[in-house]
């Protein structure tokens, strides 16, 4: 996703000199080409995230389209008040980009685990929150960020995520992409969990279930219609995200479903337990500990369906 992002940004900056990149002294082996190709559109703010956001706002208020770039929590939590007051309140044309969303930097430690960022960014007025599901969506989201004026949060994984969309999908902010359609079970995924959800969906359909898979790349504003339809037209809705189950995609979907008329599908949020990891592990290891590997997700879904049938029967 990181690679797709920077490629798209390079192309955007070629065409539009207002497009700038401000990094917080991070992005080794990622940002060099941008810095060389666009020296007057690039700034390294140094290790100073509050100033990074302030700079970006000042640049945006004087006509620039500014992307800030750092690792998950540094890009967001370290400078959250600058993002709230200076970016969002002023509707500044700043695109906050975080790499390493979720557990991408697993064995680097809890400081590098971005597990609450979506919940926090989603709470901010005027903010658009996007967590692309694969490299194709990451490139499309980057272009959409430039096309839409105003505050934007782009949550990326790192590099090497599998491509889910074999053809370029129609990408509209705030509109879920239907990857496959079905009326038994709906899987609503964001970020890198889209690939896992895609594999799980295939396995569930091999078992005879009709599975709907939605890529919910935009978490704010949420595609409420897509959620309401899934709740009305299927029997089980599962959200999948590499983020705390509190306040992220699962929280957003739960908010919508809680206000629907009775009689809709059952919801189960699949994501990170809201706790600090105590065991060292890389991304895949830690995801498995949280039940986010393909087999665990499948098992969780089957358990919910079985338990529900048992209760009903």
């Amino acid at each position, binding site marked *: 996703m990181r690679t797709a992002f920077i490629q798209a940004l390079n192309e955007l900056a070629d065409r539009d000199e207002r497009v700038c990149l401000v990094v917080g002294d991070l992005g080794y082996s990622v940002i060099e080409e941008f810095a060389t190709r666009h020296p*007057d559109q690039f*700034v390294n*703010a*140094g290790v*100073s995230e*509050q*100033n990074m*956001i*302030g*700079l*970006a*706002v*000042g*640049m*945006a*208020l*004087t*006509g*620039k389209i500014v992307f800030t770039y750092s690792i998950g929590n540094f890009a967001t939590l370290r400078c959250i*008040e*600058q993002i709230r*007051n*200076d970016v969002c*309140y*002023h509707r500044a044309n700043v695109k906050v980009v975080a790499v390493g969303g979720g557990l991408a930097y697993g064995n680097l430690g809890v400081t590098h685990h971005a597990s609450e960022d979506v919940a926090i960014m989603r709470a901010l007025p005027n903010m658009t929150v996007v967590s692309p599901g694969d490299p194709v969506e990451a490139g499309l989201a980057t272009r959409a960020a430039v096309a839409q004026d105003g505050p934007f949060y782009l949550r990326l994984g790192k590099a090497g995520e599998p491509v889910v969309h074999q053809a370029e999908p129609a990408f509209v902010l705030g509109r879920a992409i239907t990857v496959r359609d079905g009326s038994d079970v709906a899987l609503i995924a964001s970020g890198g969990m889209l690939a896992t959800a895609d594999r799980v969906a295939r396995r569930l359909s091999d078992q005879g279930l009709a599975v709907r898979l939605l890529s919910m790349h935009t978490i704010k504003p949420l595609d409420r219609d897509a959620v309401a339809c899934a709740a009305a037209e299927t029997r089980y809705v599962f959200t999948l995200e590499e983020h705390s189950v509190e306040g992220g995609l699962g929280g957003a979907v739960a908010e919508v479903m809680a206000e629907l008329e009775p009689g809709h599908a059952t919801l189960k949020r699949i994501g990170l337990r809201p706790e600090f990891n105590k065991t060292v592990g890389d991304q895949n290891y830690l995801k498995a500990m949280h039940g986010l590997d393909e087999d665990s997700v499948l098992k969780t879904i089957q358990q919910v369906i079985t338990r529900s049938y048992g209760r009903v029967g």
Partner: protein
Amino acid sequence: MTDNRHVSDDDLRALARRLRSHSLRMISAARTSHIGSCLSVADILAVLYGSELRIDPKRPQWPDRDRLIMSKGHAAAILYASMAEAGFIPVEDLGGYARNGGQLYGHATHWGVPGVEMSSGSLGHGLPVGTGMALTGKRSGAGWRVFVVMSDGECDEGSNWEAILFAGHHRLDNLNVVLDYNKIQSLDFVEKTLRLEPLADKFRAFGWAVREVDGHDVHVLREAFDALPLETGKPNAIIAHTIKGKGVSWMEGKVLWHYRPPSPDELVTALAEVEAS
């Protein structure tokens, strides 16, 4: 654009008196805090808005304007008064300060208030934003300048020092900090809270040019602003030594008047003193 070439020092002194009077009335009526912070910065804002800034109240978004960020957003009353005196908003609107249903919040707010470049109120936000503006200006070769009016207590915020380091490194000589050094912060004197001295040396060590001035002498302030940039290739810090509560003898130098609004009776005597000065 406003033509200020013929504004005299006496005109600026009169403007400063009006700004003080407006602030006293606004804060007393709304029963809000920070009258001391307004009175200390009155002469600075009078000189900036009265003669120094290249601005056009008819075109608040004029691209070539100088930008002033009031980073000490708690002194919002006198910022709004400056907007009114400069012609950005009607003077009558000042009566709506901090009132229900109005636009003029108790901390500086851009929303619905033409001329206010940036909302502030949480300290340490203005200088990083001003630095970003100055970077755009520098890179595009624009002639406009950025002024960031800061408080001394605000220097406790680390975000400022991030921006000070950045601006020095990038030689942003179109960036101007005006520091209202009134020596009193929220709970106590600066010297007893977190010592800033030697403050000028701190800025110089970060690559800034510094001039220390009497922040209540409009002529000296004018000379300092006219001398900008103080040194080519260095951001500028005008450290303005001021007195908290300046202009009302019984408010001067008192921590009390960071928070306390003047009562109706106190307002009468305060206004009389300001208008007689």
